[in-house]
């Protein structure tokens, strides 16, 4: 058992770097986010980018409204959030829908594969249904090597057909936290 619990040295995932390049190619300038560990590498890349502005939000729906304003002013953006934050966005999703505006959301999933915290499960299991109920086109990546191409497809769809699109990045890509391990003294 002791051997199984030993941490294997794991190479840092590089898919966030590929996603950064995809978003740069899409000319994303405004990055609204409520942070998630799964987005941390992408957030650092944008923080180091003088052509982009990272805006920390107090709640995710602020980002929907902000990116609607960005579009009115001719800038493109992305909203980075965790699945729990999707629920905060529901009514605000009316805005890009009714105004035929693009919206690109990258959602890191909780409450599914390997989840340890039961409180994450209700919103995690409801994420896709909530987005689709509001008319958001949802695609999903469950393998690290598929994330960037999925984001690229969603970005093209959002910015070329003026509608909200979300990419769900599966918990299997991100790895599940083990709270018992974190709690161990």
């Amino acid at each position, binding site marked *: 058992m002791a051997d199984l619990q030993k941490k294997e040295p794991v190479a840092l995932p590089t898919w966030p770097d590929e996603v950064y390049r995809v978003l740069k190619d899409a000319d994303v*300038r*405004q990055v609204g986010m409520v942070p998630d560990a799964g987005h941390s590498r992408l957030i650092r890349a944008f923080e180091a980018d003088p052509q982009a*502005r990272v*805006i*920390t*939000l*107090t*709640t995710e*729906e*602020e*980002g*929907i*409204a*902000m*990116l*609607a*304003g*960005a*579009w*009115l*002013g*001719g*800038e493109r*953006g992305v909203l980075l959030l965790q699945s729990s934050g999707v629920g905060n966005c529901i*009514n*605000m999703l*009316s*805005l890009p829908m*009714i*105004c*035929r*505006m693009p919206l690109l959301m990258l959602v890191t999933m909780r409450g599914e594969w390997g989840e340890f915290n039961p409180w994450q499960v209700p919103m995690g299991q409801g994420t896709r249904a909530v987005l689709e109920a509001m008319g958001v086109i949802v695609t999903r990546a469950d393998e690290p090597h598929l994330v960037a191409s999925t984001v690229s497809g969603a970005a093209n769809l959002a910015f*070329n057909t003026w509608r909200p699109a979300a990419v769900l990045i599966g918990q299997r890509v991100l790895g599940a936290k083990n709270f018992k391990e974190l709690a161990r003294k």
Partner: protein
Amino acid sequence: MNVPNELLHRRDVVNELLRDRSDLLVVAGLGAPNWDISAAGDSPNNFPLWGAMGAAAMMGFGLAIAQPKRRVLVITGDGEMLMSLGALATIAVQNPANLTIAVLDNERFGETGMQKTHTAAGVDLAGIATAAGFRTSRIVRTMAEVTEIRDLAHRGNGPVFAQVKINPEALYFVLPPADGGILTTRFRQSVLGDGSLYN
């Protein structure tokens, strides 16, 4: 109208804020502020919201940082602003110099039967904006002070926040286009040019 303690009339306030508006960009929150900016004269540089309560301030902010050479004025109500108090913190941290937020504070939810909002109980929105870090934040009670806010919105150093105490009067509606696609397209065409019509 300059008598202290006499409440301002909302359409006088909005007409003054938008006087000689030049290329000012305006976002209005849902309900009466939408009708107010439309009563002052519909314009492609207006974005009147018909829903998405709580969107106005952040929409103005996203627009302001996308268009740093233009001036952006958000006109909204106290109920709408109360729904997104966190936005005041987000905006203050970002410190956009070209953004002014004017809250028409009648201390009521005007569209739903004039129920009292938190400001009727004394919640100080301007104090909240000051505490969040807005460069300028004021409670406004006279037309002379409205003119100062108008001038700050047009050429001052923002972000500026104004809580304008107004009469809780219910006025006739003046409706702008309701189609969000039309509002978006005409705004972008005005700000970005005809190229915005093409992919």
